[in-house]
């Protein structure tokens, strides 16, 4: 039985359609991340699951119960907000027990639940303080405590890490992951940060302009993105897109357009050419980490490795790797080099292209071929 089922969900504010035809099925114990750029509708979708927004059309089920129109308190959910929404005039203890109090849970049970959660999140020493006396990370933990104490069927997170600085964000991300591994609660997590999505999710739902673009495991979303939007959104630095054409003659390959005279052929698996069709115009998608320095002696001989010569324009060392912008034809292409093998600006470098990892997209529909 799925923990959460969404069928053909639509939402409009007035005449503006914000969500279009969303279908989603979340299994019990899954950690699903809704990811997408601002305005894609992910927060609205979360609000509708929580019952804070009404449904325009479609169905939402929690467990096997249809919850359209059911008020939030009856849906057996808990939510952590981006701003944490801790009640400012109450102590941490009161914040966590407020919900139980409102629902009439007896005092003893409240105290037990509080102790359990406080121990789990290590916030025992903070119980007497007010939210204004806590640091960002502490507030986040209290917010999670408030959600955990309900022991609900569904956990909802609305961009909980966005308000933290970069370092704290990474720390808290790991804490959330550890907590999930321990408790295994069904979770719906909204973020605009694709790194959070990749690291936390058991499955990722990528959204764009109100539609679900792809719903799959992180590995799949990364390696076989359903369309160019997903391909460009996931992964940083983002995927390179080059217009090309499947070779008409010769061994299975794709020929890059705008090659300025010299033809750039890159090998492809035969079956890809067969299903795509010879001579077809495509967009070749290749991630920067699959474009490295070609070194005859040292580069592993992978199947389907192509080479390209390209002049280097910008070099950006990040420490762990060196991001390089090269020019192929008229386009700027991003490649990743090992710091030791980094090229110099102006140098014409030979790139090794791992075509096994390449993706082909239809130029019109932008879908994966």
């Amino acid at each position: 039985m799925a923990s959460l089922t969404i069928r053909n969900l639509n939402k409009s504010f007035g005449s503006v359609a914000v969500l279009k035809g969303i279908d989603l099925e979340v299994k019990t114990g899954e950690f699903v991340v809704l990811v997408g750029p601002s305005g894609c509708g992910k927060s609205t979708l979360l609000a509708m699951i929580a019952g804070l927004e009404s449904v325009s059309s479609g169905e939402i089920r929690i467990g096997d119960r249809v919850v359209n129109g059911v008020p939030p308190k009856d849906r057996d959910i808990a939510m952590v907000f981006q701003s944490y929404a801790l009640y400012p005039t109450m102590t941490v203890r009161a914040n966590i027990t407020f919900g139980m109090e409102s629902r009439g849970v007896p005092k003893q049970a409240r105290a037990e639940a509080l102790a359990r959660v406080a121990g789990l999140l290590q916030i025992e020493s903070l119980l007497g303080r007010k939210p204004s006396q806590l640091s960002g990370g502490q507030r986040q933990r209290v917010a999670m405590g408030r959600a955990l104490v309900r022991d609900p069927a569904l956990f909802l997170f609305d961009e909980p890490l966005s308000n933290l600085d970069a370092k704290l964000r990474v720390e808290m991300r790991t804490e959330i992951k550890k907590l999930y591994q321990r408790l295994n609660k069904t979770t719906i997590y909204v973020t605009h940060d694709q790194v959070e999505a990749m690291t936390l999710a058991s499955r990722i739902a990528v959204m764009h302009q109100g539609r679900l673009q792809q719903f799959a495991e992180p590995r799949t979303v990364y390696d076989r993105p359903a369309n160019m939007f997903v391909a460009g959104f996931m992964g940083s630095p983002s995927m390179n897109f080059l217009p090309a054409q499947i070779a008409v003659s010769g061994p299975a390959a794709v020929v890059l357009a705008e090659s300025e005279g010299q033809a750039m052929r890159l090998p492809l698996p035969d079956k890809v050419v067969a299903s795509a069709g010879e001579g077809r115009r495509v967009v070749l998608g290749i991630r920067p980490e699959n474009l490295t320095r070609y070194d005859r002696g040292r580069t592993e001989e992978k199947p389907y490795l192509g080479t390209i010569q390209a002049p280097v324009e910008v070099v950006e060392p990040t420490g762990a790797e060196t991001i390089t912008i090269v020019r192929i034809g008229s386009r700027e292409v991003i490649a990743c080099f090992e710091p030791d093998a980094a090229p110099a600006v102006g140098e014409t470098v030979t790139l090794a292209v791992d075509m096994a990892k390449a993706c082909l997209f239809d130029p019109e529909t932008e879908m994966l071929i």
Partner: protein
Amino acid sequence: MTFGFVSGAPNQSRPLRERLTAIMPQLVLGPSLLASFIYVFVFSGWTIWISLSNSTILPDYSIAGFHQYVELWSNERWRIAYTNLFLFSSLYVVGTTAIGLFLAILIDQRIRAEALWRTIYLYPLAVSFIVTGTVWRWLLSPSTGIESLVHQLGWTSFKFDWLVNREMAIYTVVITGIWQASGFVMALFLAGLRSVDPDLIKAAQIDGASMPRIYRRIILPAIGPIFVAVLVVLLQSAIKIFDLVIALTGGGPGIATTVPSIYVYDLIFQRGQMAEGAAAAMMILFALSLVLVPYMIWSNWRQRREAGRA
């Protein structure tokens, strides 16, 4: 950002012009400062002096001690005046705050035509107390106003003569005062309610709290400082109340609704008791400072606490 010109001027005529420019801010501020200083300190000082003297119709500058204050407090009429003040202030503050808060909560419920409602509740503020008092006097007078209307509608035993009733007249002042000020209080509360993070309400709804509970435990405590500001403003205006009473009841019937500020006016201009009037004015100032000084201290303390935490 401080002002300072380093003048290394070579010739003699330069320094004067530059000196003038250098103190331009002080020059500009000067006259106003002087006027304010005189207005606040010299005037108060003068009034305090007079209150300690024997002045009647004309000022007499010899100090005679505190006997004007003793005289004042032993006066029946003064006692009526400040009893009225207490009664009026408490009802006025409570009533205006309650209605203002209630209206603000209603308007905060995402209703349409909000501007219309706000205009309706707020316009009394643009109206002079004199106009308000006059209009309500017409409405409340037994022979021609509400009582008369109800009689005409058939209910002839209805009595609503508060305006001319010694015991009840002060309550007409309360009703009218609330009419005038509740819109303002509503505006303040509305601004406060709007500043509450909507996520707090969402979280509370998920937690299972009903709307009344949410208001009681979360929203209203969050706008606590606004209650304080409202209290201070209303108390201030209650202590100073004059125009409204003059227009509504003239202080009557008899002296049933007299208030301290009317008594001051009376003492100075009708009875030629300048010194006693000054003493009464000092009592008004004293009452005001009882409200304002704690408020300023509290507000200062709060500011410092917020700055320390930021």
